[in-house]
């Protein structure tokens, strides 16, 4: 291990083995499936798998493992597995079916995804993703997912950002909802109908939040879950644990995430030894409804699919920015994405579209109400933060009815939130935090650095590199849940069942004691500030200094501010009520405590990566055109961080990314 670098971290051993087999890339997954040990069907009922999170990745895994005959204990913090935030995904799911016969293939989907990730994803995982993508569509159709169809009765497709083929399957603007309902129904089919039910295999614990991971002899053997209705802490033990707990975008407070989305499950695992990789790779989605005031609790996404037909523009002249957009003639409109990127136009990838929107507003040509902003040195400025997403040309071309058929629910949602009618006036949009490419580090088997602990879906750092393409999160969640995890976890489970763990085991007792101490502390600190006030302040810090554009100076300021905020939180937070009852402030306190640690790691990661790639943009590293400039010679690796200990610096383990099948290039969408 090296000495302290920049005063912030140390470098440890590199990661050598990801468990991916060698050979031609199109055979690696087949090889791994064959080499992974099998579990005899009669032995599966002796094994228990704990799955935390019931979104696409979690729900699909629970259903599949349950169908296979394993005992599954499933947990979600919501009142039903169907509430997972996968439900909100709008635009669609990619698959290399090539139904449009427009040049698509497994290889092209693989290539587009690696390129879209700015050459910072693990090749093997991405190829596999593309390989199983077609099977996902088959499975969803079989479950009754009502994808959009053409008059022929066959499935319809559309295009998405960063891609020139039409490979996205969708269900109007509610694709995530329909996919999740499919997985949810498959999950519910396996839920036990009483303690004597010998046929079904899933125990579903709703309104239960995982608050600690239990390790015995270095293996993940269970969790402590808090019953959110009674406050009771429960110990649940098994042979393996799967975390499918989603992304950490809520560290920014304002994001498109749901209110309850959090990093706690992954972070507790991180503190017990699970590496956390690339936390600075956060995705900012270009088309969200702009913030309207200080009371805002979240930002609403307007699907990327709108960019298929809508045109993005700002006025050419700053003085036109306060005018009614319908009064601004064509020649005074700057369709800037079409101008700067002639071949991809409005369908450039998200990081590029977001940065350009920010640039236009920084130049003084944003639209909408002025918002007050603070500079790094404390000065104030008023800036309009919005750009237009205009459907007038599409409405004229297709007719309002056809536009409504494709995007109806999105238009209604926009109207309800803003009070404006998008059929008559252009929508105002602005980038917002949406997705996190970083997450718990996993190998080719989706196993973390803790034996027996697996991580799937957005919660892992996986397949999207430094930037995720639209319609690929749904693809990854279901790929992990239906087809990958059930095939890789069997290799681990084949060596089980692992020795029974007693509730009196010191590891269990210690975990329970730590959780109790934390909860007791929150309820007794009797400070003056609410949990939400800390969350909002943390959100401001990371949005300002670790958002769309990052600098060395800004990141150092952020790290200092976060440390100070965290110190204050632990002594001054006020959480009322009791622990043995439903207590939402107490729930949030635990989540914000973990965000206050993750936020710091995110900034350290961003500071150490002195290049720009995908969603991580360092102002010091850009091309002449203002695009992200990578330094492949120095940074072509995944940064997997190991917890160094309380108030100790983290330890960096580099996983070198080797591209055998794709040539690294400067990403261009011009």
């Amino acid at each position, binding site marked *: 291990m090296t000495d302290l670098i920049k005063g912030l971290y140390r470098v440890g051993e590199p990661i050598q083995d990801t468990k991916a087999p060698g050979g031609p890339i199109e055979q690696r997954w087949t090889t791994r499936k064959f080499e992974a040990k099998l579990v005899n069907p009669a032995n599966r009922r002796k094994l228990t798998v704990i799955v935390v999170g019931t979104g696409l990745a979690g729900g699909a895994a629970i259903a599949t493992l349950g169908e296979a005959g394993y005992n599954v204990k499933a947990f979600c913090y919501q*009142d039903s597995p*169907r509430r997972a935030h996968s439900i909100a995904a709008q635009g669609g799911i990619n698959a290399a079916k090539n139904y449009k016969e427009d040049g698509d293939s497994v290889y092209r989907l693989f290539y587009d995804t690696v390129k879209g990730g700015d050459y910072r994803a693990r090749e093997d995982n991405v190829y596999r993703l593309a390989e199983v993508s077609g099977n996902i569509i088959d499975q969803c159709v079989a479950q009754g997912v009502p994808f959009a169809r053409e008059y022929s009765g066959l499935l319809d497709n559309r295009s998405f950002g960063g891609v020139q083929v039409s490979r996205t399957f969708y269900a109007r603007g509610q694709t995530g909802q329909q996919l999740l309902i499919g997985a949810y129904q498959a999950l*519910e089919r396996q839920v036990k109908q009483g303690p004597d039910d010998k046929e079904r295999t899933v125990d579903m614990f709703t309104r239960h939040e995982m608050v600690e991971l239990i390790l015995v002899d270095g293996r993940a053997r269970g969790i402590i879950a808090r019953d959110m209705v009674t406050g009771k802490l429960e110990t649940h033990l098994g042979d393996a644990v799967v975390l499918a707990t989603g992304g950490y975008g809520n560290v920014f407070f304002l994001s498109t995430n*749901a209110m309850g989305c959090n990093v706690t499950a992954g972070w507790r695992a991180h503190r017990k030894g699970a590496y956390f990789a690339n936390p600075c790779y956060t995705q900012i989605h270009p088309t969200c409804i702009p913030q309207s005031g200080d009371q805002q609790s979240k930002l*609403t996404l307007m699907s990327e699919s709108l960019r298929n037909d809508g045109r993005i523009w700002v006025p050419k002249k700053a003085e036109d920015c306060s005018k009614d957009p319908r009064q601004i003639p064509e020649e005074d409109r700057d369709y800037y994405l079409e101008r700067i990127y002639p071949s991809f136009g409005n369908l450039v990838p998200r990081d590029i579209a977001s940065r350009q929107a920010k640039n236009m507003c920084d130049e003084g040509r944003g639209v909408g109400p002025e918002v007050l902003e603070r500079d790094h040195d404390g000065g104030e400025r008023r800036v309009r933060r919005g750009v237009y997403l205009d459907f007038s040309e599409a409405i004229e071309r297709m007719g309002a009815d056809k536009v409504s058929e494709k995007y109806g629910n999105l238009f209604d949602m926009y109207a309800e939130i803003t009070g404006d009618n998008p059929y008559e006036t252009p929508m105002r949009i602005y980038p917002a935090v949406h997705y996190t490419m970083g997450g718990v580090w996993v190998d080719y088997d989706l196993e973390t650095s803790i034996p027996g602990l697996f991580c799937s879906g957005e919660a892992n750092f996986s397949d999207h590199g430094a930037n995720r393409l639209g319609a690929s999160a749904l693809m990854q969640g279901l790929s992990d849940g239906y087809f990958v995890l059930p095939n890789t976890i069997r290799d681990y489970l084949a060596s089980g069942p692992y020795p029974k763990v007693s509730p009196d085991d010191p590891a269990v007792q210690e975990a329970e004691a730590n959780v109790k101490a934390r909860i007791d502390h929150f309820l007794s600190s009797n400070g003056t500030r609410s949990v939400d006030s800390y969350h909002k302040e943390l959100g401001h810090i990371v949005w300002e200094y670790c958002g769309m554009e990052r600098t060395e100076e800004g990141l150092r300021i952020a790290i200092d501010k976060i440390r100070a905020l965290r110190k204050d939180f632990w002594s001054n937070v006020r959480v009322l009520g009791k622990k043995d009852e439903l207590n939402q402030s107490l729930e949030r306190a635990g989540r914000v405590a973990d965000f206050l640690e993750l936020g710091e790691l995110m900034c350290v990661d961003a500071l150490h990566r002195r290049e720009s790639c995908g969603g991580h943009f360092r102002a010091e590293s850009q091309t002449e055109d203002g695009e992200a400039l990578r330094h492949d010679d120095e940074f072509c690796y995944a940064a997997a961080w190991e917890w160094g200990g309380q108030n100790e610096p983290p330890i960096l383990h580099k996983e070198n990314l080797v591209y055998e099948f794709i040539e690294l290039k400067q990403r261009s969408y011009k």
Partner: protein
Amino acid sequence: MKITLKVWRQAGPDAKGKLHTYQLDEVSPDESFLEMLDMLNENLNNRGEEPIAFDSDCREGICGTCGVVINGRPHGKRAVTTCQLHMRNFNDGDEITVEPWRASAFPVLRDLIVDRGAFDRIIQAGGFISANTGSAPEAHAAPVEKKKADRAFEAAACIGCGACVAACPNGSAMLFLGAKVTHLGRLPQGQPERWTRVRAMVAQHDGEGFGGCTNIRACSDACPKEIPQDVISTLNADKRSAYFH
């Protein structure tokens, strides 16, 4: 805007509840209803009073988690969820009564939070298509007539919020049930289990304590996703046909 809120407070499932009155003086019309409750909770916290417990998650009208009765109307307004309702729909000086969903099948857990586990149990009874992972044929093996696909989608858009139950004087969940039966029953993939599904789901619905349907139509009026009333007709038709299959 100045707003007076009368909010149902109930400490636990077995506690007696009652309406408490709160005043808010600076409510912006652009705020959402739940953001207003957040603001109220911040004030309560600062005063040392326990905040009001209410469910919400996505805050964009798709997860179905949120849901309160506002001035006697589930979700407060036509075709929106509680989280989508914005304060520009109210006037300065308004008095707003806020209550949880009322139905014997939805017991109150605390304040405005109710237990909707009955909905999951109805789905467990038959709201699925049995297609084990890996057994699916190629996606285009069975084309689906666009009209049927659109109808299935329309019914599948149900978010499981329970507003229909809260609105129904009989506490019936027929709209929720009808939506799922219609969604799966219109598709070719749903045919093999079409009759067993409707029988089992209706039995579970009745067993949970939801009431019967007397065609009042308060349900589709309250539904934030505008699930059409005729999914109940479809449900009834399938239930009858199930006798012969």
